[in-house]
């Protein structure tokens, strides 16, 4: 009986939590006259018309925005994984002067709100003539500014037995060979977790992309979706929902494919989704 009540509560909560998502998907298939004032999760006269309408609702097609988002997210994943892995190896395995201090600085940047830096960074990147390019979004990632991933990888590397390093050392390997032959291959799970979170965070990121990308040819999906705010009237709601659904599909696909890994990544580091 108690088990049954618990299941009932969980199912009720589940319905509440999933409702906005299901409503979003169903609304994207509803004709205009059904969108207004409807709780229903099932379109009466389902239509796919909002998808092509939304896709070409701006002077530049959504294909361009998806391409831009994909390029930025892809490059960010590569940049984060490479740069954070190097830094993490130094913190986790190498002894050098000032390590403790740098590690403390790295933890400090974990808690540093990004908004504090946005004004001077903007001025800096404007001086480099980087506005409206991908550089302000990618270059900082090449310099290991995402401390979350360094932290995650340090935690992971501390679990790799040191005996492996020592054995390689006895065979004459230096710090570079130990990195290439042992740490790099064994860090794959941490790299995959970092890659997934990098992708999802960049794909969803709005603040920095809004600031650095202006030209319609250069903007990403979230910045393009923002333009739906300027168009008023009920006829734009359907296309807006359709493009919102499409924009969430990649993240949803990652969720389906890597659900277990995402949950574990959170457990070990407390990363936010």
């Amino acid at each position, binding site marked *: 009986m108690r088990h049954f009540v618990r299941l009932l509560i969980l199912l009720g909560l*589940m319905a509440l939590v999933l409702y906005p998502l299901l409503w979003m998907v169903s609304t994207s298939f509803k004709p205009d006259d059904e969108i207004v004032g409807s709780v229903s999760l099932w379109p009466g006269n389902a239509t796919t018309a909002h998808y092509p309408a939304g896709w070409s609702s701006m002077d530049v097609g959504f294909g361009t925005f998806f391409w831009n988002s994909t390029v930025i997210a892809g490059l960010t994943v590569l940049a984060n994984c490479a740069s954070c892995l190097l830094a993490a190896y130094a913190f986790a395995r*190498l002894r050098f002067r000032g390590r403790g201090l740098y590690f403390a600085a790295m933890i400090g940047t974990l808690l540093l709100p990004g908004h504090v830096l946005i004004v*001077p960074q903007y*001025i800096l990147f404007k001086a480099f003539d980087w506005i409206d390019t991908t550089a302000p979004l990618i270059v900082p990632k090449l310099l290991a500014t995402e401390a979350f991933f360094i932290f995650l990888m340090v935690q992971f590397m501390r679990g790799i037995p040191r005996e492996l390093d020592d054995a390689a050392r006895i065979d004459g390997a230096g710090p570079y060979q130990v990195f290439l032959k042992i740490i790099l291959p064994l860090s794959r799970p941490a790299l995959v977790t970092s890659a997934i979170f990098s992708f999802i965070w960049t794909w969803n990121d709005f603040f920095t992309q809004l600031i650095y990308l202006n030209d319609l040819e250069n903007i990403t999906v979230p910045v393009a979706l923002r333009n739906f705010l300027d168009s008023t009237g009920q006829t734009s709601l359907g296309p807006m929902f359709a493009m919102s659904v499409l924009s969430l599909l990649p993240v949803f696909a990652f969720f389906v494919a890597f659900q277990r890994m995402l949950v574990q990544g959170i457990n070990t580091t407390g990363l936010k989704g």
Partner: protein
Amino acid sequence: MPRSSNPANRKEGIAGYVFLSPWLLGLMGITAIPMLGSLVLSFTNYDLLSDWSELEWVGFDNYTRMFADDPHYLDAVGVTVIFALVAVPLKLAAALGVALLLNKERRGTGIFRGLFYLPSLLGGSVALALVWRAMWSKDGAVNAFLALFGIEGLNWINEPDWALETLVVLAIWQFGAPMVIFLAGLKQVPNELYEAAAVDGATKWRSFWHITLPGLSPVIFFNLVLETINGFQGFTSAYVVSGGTGGPVDSTLMYTLYLYQSGFTDYEMGYASAMAWVFLIAIALITATLFSTGKFWVHYGDGQ
């Protein structure tokens, strides 16, 4: 461990800096120097449109303006504090409640856990905020639902008294990430304690109060710090739901949204820098306060 002049150690010391060099460059170029730059700018009238030669030193004017001459700024502080004070405890309570329901491994638990977690991945996006805006509008699903019971709903996002609540609900909806952390924490509470308590005839409520909560306190603390810091930084949902304005009448003007408006729509970058520094100091103080209260209620087992 022998160190100093040993050549292997010296090689390792150099390698350390080689591997750390991208990060060091980033720490200097992307973080530390811009931070100092923004501190300097915060004492100037710099705006993005004028030439650098027109830059003037204005002393503490930007800082006094915030607290003495800018009602919008005070609105933004109020909105952000209320948002954090309401949304964070409710989100954590939801996360803990559902985690307790899912604690025992049963068939289907994994599916529930995954689906409850899904909003945490999607909820921060522009797409979801647009959906939220439509859902809570006059003709949205929320009012259509209320109409089933004969209640006429408001245009929630245009009501100064309610607009922020829609953002709070959106934040609570994303309780899945702290929930997953709570679930991991619950696994760490030793089972023997519950068994011993049951032998002593303790009620469920008493063992929750005296075993679960103290055992979970490090995780509660961790979630509290993280969610508070995140709560203060909410931007996307406030921007989208208010159409970029922070309205109606500043009711959703989150701090970061006002900072964005000052710096990037009004181009008052000196003023925005001053706001950023006050923000940084406020976050640091709040984090420090949380850590100092932690001593009194966070219990670490095994003398960690």
